[in-house]
């Protein structure tokens, strides 16, 4: 977070060695930036009708963010445009000072979550081309995520296959909140294609799928939306496991992005306990739910859960596995985790290296 109320007990440990940042949000300086990458028909459609999502707002989010564009107040590029829209400023503010060796781009506000699936596909494809043109071809540290119109599994799978072998991309990106839980069969073509081209699926907290944000309806506040990403992600993960996605796609790897990880052990225990009783309902599962989670799921770290006693968090990490965490800052968003502050002294060198860089390089296949 960008505001620290509690002084750290130990001096911050600076990160002099290289790190991976597995959640960077690139933005368009203007919407026009995308038009060269899409047919005129869609350009005109956007001008006339805009992007109609599964919520009522034509512009901006239904829950107003805490800051403009949910971004750091110091992240406006000097040349203008929204935070995260300037490569040179991103290099200056993030990539160079923090020694980022690998930066994974997760474009939000793409075509995902749009009601018109043809439009969604056109915008997603444009965003993918735009990532190459504006970012990954200009800075080799940056790698893109293939965004897809996931409500239409067939077109999403085609977009994924179109990018097969393209080293500009290291994962397929989905949002967590969709029309249905992500284990449902309408999304399986996405998983099949991702497994086929050998990329992990990143599931980033966010989106609107037309369902109230809680099982009791719509909450009032932005903080409820933000905290609630952890609950939503638990539901998504439970659905993926219980629908048998990892039985059907045994090589599939998934990354839970920006939804926390502290809840993972408890979810695994709850799933296992009820699986013991209710196995007959999901007989195609060959292993305990927590074993699928242990083998198939990675977690980005930001926003790190923040207990009063830091050792509690490290005990939770032991339950999850130091080999499964991927450091992320969430740049340029306001709840940025500062790399030099997230791990106090006392974590072993091997775990520190895995946490900051090694796990990400291995997962994303970066030498």
């Amino acid at each position, binding site marked *: *977070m960008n505001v620290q109320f509690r002084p750290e007990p130990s001096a911050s440990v600076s990160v002099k060695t290289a790190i991976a940042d597995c959640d960077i949000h690139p933005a368009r300086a203007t919407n026009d930036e995308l038009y060269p990458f899409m047919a005129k028909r869609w350009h005109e459609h956007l001008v006339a009708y805009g992007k109609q999502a599964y919520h009522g707002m034509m512009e901006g989010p239904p829950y107003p963010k805490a800051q403009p564009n949910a971004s750091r107040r110091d992240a406006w590029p000097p040349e203008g445009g929204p935070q995260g829209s300037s490569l040179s400023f991103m290099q200056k503010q993030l990539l160079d000072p923090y020694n980022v060796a690998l930066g994974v781009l997760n474009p939000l506000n793409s075509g995902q979550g749009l009601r018109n699936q043809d439009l969604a596909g056109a915008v997603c494809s444009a965003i993918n081309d735009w990532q190459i043109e504006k970012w990954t071809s200009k800075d080799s540290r940056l790698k893109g995520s293939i965004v897809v119109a996931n409500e239409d599994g067939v077109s999403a799978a085609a977009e994924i296959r179109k990018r097969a072998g393209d080293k500009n991309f290291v994962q397929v990106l989905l949002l967590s909140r969709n029309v249905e839980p992500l284990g449902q069969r309408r999304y399986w073509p996405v998983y099949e294609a991702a497994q086929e081209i050998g990329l992990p699926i990143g599931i980033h907290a966010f989106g609107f799928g037309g369902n109230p944000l*809680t099982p009791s309806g719509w909450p*009032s506040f932005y903080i409820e939306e933000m905290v609630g990403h952890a609950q939503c992600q638990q*539901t998504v993960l439970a659905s993926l496991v219980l629908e048998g996605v990892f039985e059907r796609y045994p090589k599939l790897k998934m990354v839970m992005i920006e939804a926390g990880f502290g809840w993972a052990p408890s979810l695994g225990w709850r799933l296992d306990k009820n699986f013991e009783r209710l196995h007959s309902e999901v007989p195609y599962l060959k292993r305990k739910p927590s074993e699928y989670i242990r083998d198939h799921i990675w977690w980005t770290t930001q926003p790190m859960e923040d207990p009063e006693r830091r050792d*509690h968090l490290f005990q939770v990490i032991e339950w999850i596995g130091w080999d499964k965490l991927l450091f992320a800052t969430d740049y340029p968003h306001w709840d940025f985790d500062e790399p030099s502050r997230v791990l106090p002294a006392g974590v072993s060198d091997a775990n520190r290296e895995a946490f900051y860089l090694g796990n990400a390089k291995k997962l994303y296949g970066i030498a």
Partner: protein
Amino acid sequence: MTSPIAGGVDCDLHPAVPHLTSLLPYMNDYWRDQVTTRGMTDLVSQSYPTNSPISSRPDWRPGQGKPGSDLADMQKQALDRFGTAYGICNPLYGVQMVFSEDMQDAFCRALNDWLAREWLDKDARLRGSIVIPTQSVEKSVAEIERCAKDKRFVQVLMLVMGDMPLGKRAYWPIYAAAERLGLTIGIHAGSAYHNPPTAVGWGSYHIEDYVAQATAFQTQLTSLIVEGVFARHPNLKMVMLESGFTWLPAYLWRLHKFWRGIRMETPWVDRAPLEIVRSNIRFSLQPVDAPPDPATLNRLFDHMQSDELLLFSTDYPHWQFDGDEVLPPGLSPELVRKIMIDNPLATYGRLQQALA
């Protein structure tokens, strides 16, 4: 295993309504006529299908009828077995599922009267929860006031998945009535199915719904805290029933972090979420969603940083444990006493009041 001690308070017992027709004697002519003329069916919720393994421990399943529908069974299998001094009855009959607030009101009134006559009158250890028609706050308050005259009712019962997040201001008269009358608010697993059971819609499976109950408790706690319920009602106790509790520490670490970051959005929240939970929120013991390993459990208790949060429960007749292993292994005698006796008595003010 850890042995239970005598004199405990079982905070989550589920007496079952045999059938909707069992409530007919407690309805007026109009509603009796509605039920019979329209051929209304039994209100069994998908949250607890009668024959689902989790709805009853195998050895607690009766030869016929619904699990939990027989007082003698409950006495033998739960109250006597664990030396219970008080047992709090939380009926889970599916009255919340109906969409008419008038019908819901009639059914709730019948259910509460049925509980008093057919259970509380028949075993002096039993206490009741008032089931309310939450679609109408006005009718809910009236039902709370009506039932509260009977001091054996110690709690107001709501489902964790309902029409609106429970912190919403519209519900506050319910909380004011409970606080005024010395009742706790119990929030129990289960859905009215007026909204999809998850934030991403409907899953395919019963196990998915049940696992999702824990996430519903988490979003409700957020709502209750950030809307300011406990700033307005600092003495109100709320009990999360059949919620699980092993998710609590990591949940609070996240909530606390976001609250520090954006508390300007909800400036009326006058204490840190951690403090609010420690003073106002309690959790029933079962289910214990953790491996039966003392080292893991003790680490979890350490993460909770309080020995006052848990209240003993069997969740009878639901299947949460086998044999007499109602307490997880490795609990110290002091913690057993807190969970079984001290914490419930401190939570349910009416338990120690002389019965009028």
